[in-house]
């Protein structure tokens, strides 16, 4: 029930006096303020520090990938019975994070939500970068990543054909479609702003690059009409993708008959969990950004409050998923299901299970009910980090605890991550932030023309 308002003339529930854009802004001030970050203010010291840390981590990722390519997946901590380790955990975690971006940019556009305007651009960028990070893991889990194209159905002389009943093959299609539509949607949304940057740029090279990328945009009425149509269609395409991608990811687990994976609640609960972690990531990015670049006028308390409410709603669905899994494990009377839940709660991974419950349920689901906390920037930032840790642990618990106790006790075992597991994981965080730092430096992180529209609308009111 985490749905936001539906209707043409929404008057969303917000405290009066908390607008989507601070008063006093004009078309010019909006354009100047956002484009200045890219064009005139130059590269700041803080940017360099952050970028270099992220870039160093990216090099760590390269090291880890090189090692896996040279030596093989034996470097991971996986073995029988835990054949899916960090790679799957991280894949699901990153894919999930991406979902909030699409939800904000596409679903809220269809729902005519004005508050999405200032956060959609970087939330979408976040989606693309998160999907890139996610893609690293299945690829590096293959053993021979250079043969990845065997996953695609093409006529070959080997007689190899993908098993279409396997959700892992569905994943290939779901994720690549999602990545394609996200990039298209993001790029189409950027075109008018790229043209603005082209027109504002003073340096020759910037004029050339932005001019090239803006595809000859002149802002004529016909351009705008086609633009509106294209973004509406892409939004319509992207919205079902949010649901379908994580549903397919949940099928990776549920189609199997492993206790702890085979549960019918997984599709909606995975989608909710994905949006939950994704909104947490948007908050993690938005809060420092708005203070570093002084964008409090554009990303107002109202945005933070709304995102916190989304966290609360999706988090409650996740909690519902945990509850149903536990209840049905007992209600079903299936001894394996019951054992799986008891093992999660009291077995060797119990501390991590309870840490997950603390991070995902106990802390956020109590604090976020309070509107004071929802409007406390520091508290929100901490909660967003806690939720991301919790959602990572959730995937870890699902993957590892379900596998490590096989049906036959002689095949029981434990999973211990190796150094390469951690290096690859932290390395992708480096990849994510490297891309993100480049994005905020070279592209407008807030949609300029949509903010101008917002100025127009708020002026009318």
């Amino acid at each position, binding site marked *: 029930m985490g749905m936001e308002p539906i209707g043409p003339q929404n008057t969303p529930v917000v405290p009066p006096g908390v607008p989507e854009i601070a008063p006093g802004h004009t078309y010019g001030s909006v354009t100047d303020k956002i484009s200045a970050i890219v064009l005139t203010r130059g590269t700041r010291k803080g940017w360099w520090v952050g970028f270099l840390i992220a870039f160093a981590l990216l090099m760590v990722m390269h090291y880890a990938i090189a090692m896996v390519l040279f030596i093989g997946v034996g470097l991971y901590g996986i073995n029988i019975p835990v054949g899916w380790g960090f790679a799957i955990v991280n894949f699901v975690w990153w894919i999930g994070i991406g979902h909030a971006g699409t939800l904000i940019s596409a679903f809220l556009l269809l729902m005519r939500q004005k508050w999405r305007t200032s956060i959609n651009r970087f939330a979408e960028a976040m989606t693309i970068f998160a999907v890139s990070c996610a893609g690293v893991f299945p690829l590096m889990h293959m053993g021979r990543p250079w043969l990845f194209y065997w996953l695609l159905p093409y006529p070959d002389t080997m007689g190899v054909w993908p098993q279409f009943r396997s959700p892992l093959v569905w994943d290939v299609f779901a994720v690549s479609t999602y990545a394609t539509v996200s990039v298209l949607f993001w790029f189409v949304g950027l075109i008018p702003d790229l043209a603005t940057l082209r027109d504002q740029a003073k340096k020759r090279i910037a004029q050339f690059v932005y001019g090239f990328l803006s595809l000859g945009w002149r802002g004529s009425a016909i351009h705008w009409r086609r633009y509106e149509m294209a973004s509406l269609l892409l939004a319509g395409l992207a919205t079902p993708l949010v649901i379908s991608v994580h549903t397919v990811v949940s099928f990776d687990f549920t189609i199997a008959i492993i206790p702890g994976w085979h549960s*019918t609640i997984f599709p909606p609960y995975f989608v909710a969990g994905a949006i939950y972690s994704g909104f947490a990531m948007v908050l993690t990015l938005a809060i420092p950004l708005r203070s570093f670049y002084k964008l409090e006028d554009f990303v107002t308390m109202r945005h933070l409050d709304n995102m916190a409410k989304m966290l609360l709603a999706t988090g409650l669905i996740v909690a519902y998923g945990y509850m149903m899994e536990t209840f049905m494990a007992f209600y079903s*009377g299936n001894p394996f299901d019951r054992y799986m839940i008891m093992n999660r709660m009291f077995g060797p991974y119990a501390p991590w299970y309870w840490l997950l419950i603390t991070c995902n349920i106990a802390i956020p689901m109590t604090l976020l009910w309070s509107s004071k906390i929802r409007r406390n920037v520091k508290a929100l930032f901490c909660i967003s980090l806690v939720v991301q840790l919790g959602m990572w642990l959730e995937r870890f618990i699902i993957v590892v605890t379900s596998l490590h106790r096989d049906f036959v006790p002689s095949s029981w075992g434990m999973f211990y991550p190796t150094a390469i597991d951690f290096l690859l994981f932290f390395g992708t965080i480096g990849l994510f932030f490297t891309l993100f730092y480049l994005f905020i430096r070279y592209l407008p992180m807030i949609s300029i023309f949509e903010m101008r529209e917002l100025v127009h609308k708020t002026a009318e009111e």
Partner: protein
Amino acid sequence: MNDSLPPQYDRVQQGSLVAGVVLLGLSIALGFSNWTQFFRSYLVAFIFWTGMGLGCMAILMLHHMVGGTWGFALRRLLESGAKTVRLMAVLAIPLLLIVPKLYSWAAPEADRAAMPPFKRFYLSRTFFTGRTIFYFAAWIVLIYFLNKFSAEQDRTGEPGILRRLQNLSGPGLLIYGLTVTYASVDWAMSLEPKWFSTIYGMIFMVTQALSATALVTVVVMFLSDRKPLSDIVTPLLFNDFGNLLLVFTMLWAYLSFSQYLIIWAGNLQDEIPWYMARASGGWAWVALALIVFHFAIPFFLLLMRFIKRRKRILAALAAGLIVMSVIDIYWLTVPAFEPKGPEFHLTDYGTLIGIGGLWMWLFLSQLRKRPLLPLHDPRLEEVLHHG
């Protein structure tokens, strides 16, 4: 600008009462020849109409939380619909008295010692009865306060009441989700006590929301030609109702299909018999009808603005969705009694329309008590002033 229900609805209201009493009476008369069958029919009707009232309650709380013009036109209808849960509480009493007739786990011949310990504890008659009483108590208290605050808002116009409604609706939705989940397990899932599915409660929630939205769409269509609803009801608003129906239709299909795919792929002996019964014999045709008429056709029609903005067409579609929701509930529950295929029983129709008549009567009598548009909702006033 605010008047209440027009007088010609007196006849509809009386007619509903008469139809309800007569049909329920006839069904009871038929029950003398076969009480077990009577109560099987009664259970399906009870689950459906309780769900209708609860769906109204859920959408009402959702609207308090998120606002939106669509909800102001519906608010009174939803409030009145929710109030029928009291009637359903009374109608639950006979069911609680005959639990062993319907539920195999409570039957005298059931081998309770062989049941897994948690199930023996959970599916015991006392606990079952206690839980049902608890659900209704929770719902009635929630609905009482939702109506009380709303009436206060009409009377005093104090702006702080909106806040109170919201503070109630947030936790209210949580209570709704939990109680409906366990009620669906108790009333319907436990008819086949060996089977289980974690998504089941969500399917019930969506079905309730869908049938309630469909019902109020039909009623708004009838009321939209005259004041006060004509002030705010526009084709655009019907477009919004259509979108809501589309969302719930898609959600229903998504949840139902997920459950099917996962159980089909797993093919485990604990789970698959449930679908074996529902996808073979006459039930396969019902399942097919659900796919076509509960999803495919309404989905494609509801994608079109042309349909959504014409209120009569939309209302006809909504009425069709109500019928399909009944069939869905029937398909979910009745194969427990008739594994070979659906059988024809007069009591199925008698109880469904009979309880429906009583439901309608109470709904309309509640609806006439208050103005059709909420007075003094600060958000509605904003909408009216901005046109």
